[in-house]
């Protein structure tokens, strides 16, 4: 059975048999090539569930809103890694969760798509095999999916869910060659990197879509919202934007699973992964730690090894 059909059947059964109170998945969005999160409490709605490259949101952040309820959740591999972190950090009770792992070939990057469309408005779109069929006013174009997948997917080294109760469809290859070589350390000088960083930060409006979409950003009160002391001015000038993103990056270092949800949520197309990617690399290279894999492992910031190369804690 195709994964999507299996998902519909499974969600209906879970709800019907009362195994979950709520099932969170994706339904068709109101715009072409978009999906939207759906919250099902009755089996009747399960037929509307969809899967595929339009399912760009990470649904894990929603779990905090339903404490005590038994929730069925659709997870792509990266979402599952986020879930592992949430379980590790005692934010989610594994026992209340029914995790439905789904295959993923990468999700569509709307920024790449916009670039390809070059100003033409997309009014219809569908996925056919490896092609994304796009259409608008008096034009049609098929674009290979691998040219449109989000950068976080293109660099995805772990495309199969690690944590699940059921995994639908197995071994579907990601469009991007998996295990793409680790990015080389940025060799440019500090000035060039700072200029690029500033350019990205200048776009930020501090709408906090990134934070809200991020499964690792679950603080009940974000540091930017504190007024005594006020860590940040809030006027939205460049230093505010830099401060927010730098602190957020450090706060999710060793916890960020590079799902890319933050970058896809950004209405200003800020390249938010530029910071996280580097910190993820540091965690991997310096500490041999990849977030989101083993819930039994201590958190990276919460663990210490005697052979730590730095001596500041000794």
């Amino acid at each position: 059975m195709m994964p999507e059909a299996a998902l519909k059947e499974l969600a209906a059964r879970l709800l019907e048999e009362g195994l979950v109170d709520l099932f969170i998945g994706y339904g068709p969005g109101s715009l072409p090539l978009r999906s939207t999160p759906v919250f099902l409490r009755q089996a009747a709605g399960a037929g509307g569930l969809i899967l595929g490259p339009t399912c760009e949101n990470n649904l894990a952040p929603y779990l905090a809103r339903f404490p005590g309820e038994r929730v069925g959740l659709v997870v792509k591999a990266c979402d599952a890694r986020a879930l592992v972190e949430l379980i590790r950090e005692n934010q989610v009770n594994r026992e209340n969760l029914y995790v439905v792992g789904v295959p993923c070939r990468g999700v569509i990057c709307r920024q790449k798509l916009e670039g390809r469309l070059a100003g033409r408005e997309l009014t219809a779109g569908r996925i056919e095999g490896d092609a994304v069929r796009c259409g608008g006013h008096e034009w049609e174009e098929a674009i290979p999916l691998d040219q449109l997948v989000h950068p976080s997917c293109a660099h995805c080294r772990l495309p199969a869910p690690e944590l699940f109760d059921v995994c639908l469809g197995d071994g579907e290859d990601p469009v991007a060659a998996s295990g793409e070589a680790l990015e080389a350390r940025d060799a440019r000088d500090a000035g060039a990197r700072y200029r690029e960083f500033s350019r990205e930060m200048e776009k930020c409006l501090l709408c906090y879509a990134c934070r809200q979409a991020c499964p690792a950003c679950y603080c009940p009160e974000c540091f930017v919202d504190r007024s005594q002391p006020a860590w940040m001015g809030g006027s939205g000038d460049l230093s505010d934007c830099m401060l927010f993103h730098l602190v957020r990056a450090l706060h999710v270092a060793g916890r960020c699973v590079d799902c890319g949800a933050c970058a896809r949520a950004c209405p200003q197309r800020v390249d938010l992964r530029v910071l996280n990617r580097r910190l993820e690399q540091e965690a991997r290279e310096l500490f041999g730690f990849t977030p989101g894999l083993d819930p039994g492992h201590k958190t990276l910031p919460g663990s210490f090894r005697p052979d730590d190369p730095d001596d500041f804690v000794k």
Partner: protein
Amino acid sequence: MVGFIPEAELDRVLARLAGPYRLYVPVSCAGRVELGEWSPGIRPVLEGRAYGTAKQLFLPRSEELFAFGTHPDGTPRVVQPERDRRPLALFGLRPCDARAIGMLDQVFLGQDPPDDPYRERRQGALLMGLVCSRPGRACFCAQVGGSPAGTAGLDLLFTRIGGGFCVEAVSTAGEAHAAQEDWPAATAAQVAGAREIQQAAAPAAMATPGLAQELEARFEDEVWARLHEKCLGCAACTFFCPTCHCFDVMDAGSYDHGTRLRCWDSCMFPKFTLHASGHNPRLSGKERMRQRVMHKFCYYPLRFGPEACVGCGRCIEVCPVNLDIRAVLAELGGSE
């Protein structure tokens, strides 16, 4: 009278405006249409509507209300900023965006005291609209009382026909400008062509009488729990809304040397209504999303008449989870 500007003349028309005015036009910017300051050589984009709103020209993301500091004797002094005195001119504005500016006018100018910084930018501004010939995928202006050929808030209305633009003055300021420009009259055929496009663009009126009153009675309705379910609680929708105007006032710097700023704020943020005592009248995302919807479709109409939504669809486009206000309205028993 309807004037006619040949396509090839547009550049000269814009160049004449650019002296006395700060002229903004839709430009292509990294694959998107944005409002940008015109300079010679810039070709306005006449398809689609700008990704960002025109409100940011009148109510910037952040602006200085005044500066403060101290005199040599230590007593404080307050200095109001000098702003660019040249009025704004906007060309290629979509009718929905012009209508939204009219709604901001009600809040910032229509209630005493007028908002000084806003008035400085708004006074003398020339708004030149362009009729939409084809609705975008997220457009729903007709459902909220607007029209792709609407003139509300505009001074001049441009209709693009073969070979150029028909221009009509739709305000006294527009008439004054048209008289000054003295554009050649459009031929009967050109006027007929413009009318045809305007009528084709104009959708059937689908206003929603009584929605405000109906919503007022549904403040405690259970439906809100479901409607806000997928909302992440970010401010993308409010920052990209052409009628959202909530702002914060804050100081930067110190007693000796600082500025008082006014910056965009959003009812979607928990801090928005947080009292110093810790009490917060809008505790969760449900209350905050309800406020956003109610402000647009209930509170603003009860105060000023029309709904504070022009159907531009930006909130639909920028929402990270594709929460569609049209669906929200449908569920609330409004249009659709």
